[in-house]
């Protein structure tokens, strides 16, 4: 049940000095008040009850998690070989975004970050659209305008993120206030990082949420790092969740590598009554990969820490859980991976064949009706292009 973390005493913020012997905090989930459904082996821990997700929904989530992992593998290679300009890895975070999205209905609105392609796929966005975005082609919602992995699509009620991290926190809160004002029962979800909690936007959004009680679940995806900055340099609080108390916003910590736990707590918070307001959920997880393709984590973190977290891989845990339930086996697993890889290759082929946007499209969508200044500037560009050809 989403409720205030009763105490956070058990969990200590790490300082750089204390990080000598890395352990994954999920090991002591109960002591650390981290809500869990299953342990590293996919066995029920008895903390949160098994949500008993119907098999087809569960499989949809798992298959999407594998697809998302496969995309990350391939995206990295594409970047390293120069075929995409830039890559933001999301490996290790699949349980957070897939679990949370599963808890939401399609008309609900999701605001997400750059590490959450699973949100798109869970809602049925075609794979090729993702790759068209990665390749900056014209035929994707943003028309090739934005950095690879910064996605969204109104047709699926996924709002494009702001490139400035966290700036959408008050936007989602405002949108949810809008639903309240209009008397709609649309629900809202926002996912953002631990580092993003330091911005004034977090403060604004939480504060308005505490006063106006909009139907939002805020997930602070605590993946251990904001680029090279660990939690101890990001904030002095023991958890990110408890920041909710400062605004009268209900909050809790969940095992972010446990897709079932994420689903459970998000679902419960999503389904709260109209007057019950927002919930802040800290999802404890870990960024297994580089921050981006321009990063070098060896400069600031120990491989041992990565290794400690590897034992809690969200895909493996969910797979083991499903195997226990006889919903899954090695054969299915192999087939799934093969299918994902194949589909990705096909999507890449299709997307790479697409056109880049025409230069003059940079003027579109500035205003609903272009100003004369922009008309003039566009005309100059077109004349210039003519001169070129």
């Amino acid at each position, binding site marked *: 049940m989403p409720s205030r973390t009763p105490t956070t005493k058990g969990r200590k913020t790490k300082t750089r000095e204390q990080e000598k012997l890395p352990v994954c905090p999920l090991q002591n989930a109960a002591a650390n008040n981290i809500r869990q459904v299953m342990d590293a082996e996919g066995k029920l821990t008895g903390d949160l009850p098994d949500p008993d997700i119907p098999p087809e929904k569960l499989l949809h989530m798992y298959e999407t998690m594998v697809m998302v992992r496969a995309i990350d593998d391939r995206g990295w290679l594409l970047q390293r070989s120069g075929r995409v300009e830039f890559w933001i890895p999301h490996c290790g975070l699949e349980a957070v975004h897939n679990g949370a999205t599963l808890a939401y209905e399609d008309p609900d*609105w999701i605001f997400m970050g750059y590490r959450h392609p699973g949100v798109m796929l869970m809602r049925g966005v075609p794979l090729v659209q993702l790759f068209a975005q990665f390749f900056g082609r014209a035929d*994707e*919602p*943003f*028309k090739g*305008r*934005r950095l690879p992995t910064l996605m*969204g*699509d*109104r*047709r699926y009620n996924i*709002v*494009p993120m*702001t490139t*400035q991290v966290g*700036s959408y926190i*008050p*936007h*989602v*809160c*405002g*949108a*949810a*206030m*809008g*639903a*309240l*004002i*209009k008397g709609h029962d*649309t629900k809202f979800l926002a996912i953002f990082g631990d580092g993003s909690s330091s911005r*004034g*936007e977090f*403060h*604004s*959004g939480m*504060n*308005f949420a505490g*006063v106006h009680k909009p139907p939002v679940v805020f997930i602070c995806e605590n993946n251990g790092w904001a680029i090279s900055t660990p939690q101890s340099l990001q904030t002095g609080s023991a958890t990110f969740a408890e920041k909710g108390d400062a605004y009268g916003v209900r909050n809790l910590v969940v095992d972010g590598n446990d897709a079932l736990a994420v689903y459970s707590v998000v679902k419960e918070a999503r389904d709260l009554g109209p007057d019950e307001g927002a919930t802040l959920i800290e999802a404890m997880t870990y960024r297994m990969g580089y921050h981006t393709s321009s990063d070098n984590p060896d400069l600031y973190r120990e491989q041992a820490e990565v290794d400690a977290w590897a034992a809690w891989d969200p895909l493996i845990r969910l797979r083991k859980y499903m195997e226990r339930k006889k919903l899954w086996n090695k054969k299915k697993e192999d087939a799934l991976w093969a299918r994902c890889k194949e589909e990705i290759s096909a999507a890449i082929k299709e997307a790479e064949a697409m056109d880049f946007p025409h230069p003059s499209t940079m003027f*579109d*969508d*500035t*205003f*609903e*009706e272009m*100003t*004369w*200044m*922009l008309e003039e500037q566009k005309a100059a560009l077109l004349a210039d292009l003519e001169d070129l050809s």
Partner: protein
Amino acid sequence: MNIATATADTGTTVLEAIKAGMSDAMDADSDVILMGEDVGLAGGIFRTSTGLHQRFGSKRVIDTPLDEKGIVAHGIGLALYGLKPIVEIQFSGFIHDAFEHIMFCAARYRWASGGQYSCPMVIRAPSFGGIKGGFWHSQSVEAYFVHHGGMKILCPSTPEDAYRMMLAAVQDPDPVLLIEPVPLYRSMSAKFEMDGKAATIGEAKVTRTGSDVTVVTYGPIQYEVEKAAEELATTKGYDVEIIDLRTLIPYDMDTILASVKKTGRVITVHEAPLSMGFGAELAAVIQEKAFGYLHTPIQRVAAPDVPYHFSIGDEYYRPNARRIRLAIERTMEFEF
């Protein structure tokens, strides 16, 4: 019927016109809401929203926490969801905290989403000096919002414009920055029909026709220009044409060019600081588009590049009729 208390004899003040514009817009469209610090029971610190809270309730007239960034950012969310928020910044001097959200969120969601989302909202920025407000409460902030496009900027200086521009701003499909003339709130009134008709964005007004020199201006300072023009008509026989821009983005190039081609002399006047004030853009464009017509260099009259001084700002910082007159004389008597 709107809530403004127009009296038969004096007409409607700018303040009442703004309130009437909001009230009519809220009557016409239930998606229009007002939010900001103290806009509710207090009616705003200038009382531009007196009575709206009582009339439309606390769901549509929202007192916010003290957080300008939050006000604009939540307005953006409301707009994304389909509402039409009017957000009030208590004094334009406090708008800067919301800079990122105004310029790079509100004015960018349409482009950044490939046209899927838009942010129709009105950001009210009570501006300008002459009220003994010191440097935070007398700011002219419009210039910061011109660079990088994406934002319409309106500046009414009559009650009728205030009313109709409020309606136009609310109806516009994109975000609009409404620069409100604080010094005129109560000092200027006029009679006009509150008929729900919106102004046309992008149309300047020639408020005085003349053949010798064009003064391009906007905001309350234009009444100082008028005084200077009257005086010069009497003392020197100079025939000054005055253009009230009314819209800064997109400004009315046709009206400016027609005037400049007629007079061959241009002065820009604003009370924002000189360097990179809107006069800079006007001068740059005019000299480019009307080079052959110019008899004299374009002169800019503006405040100096320092903050607004509490004790002496209203008299010596803000341009006044005398300084404007001197500039016109210099232009008229320019020799190489």
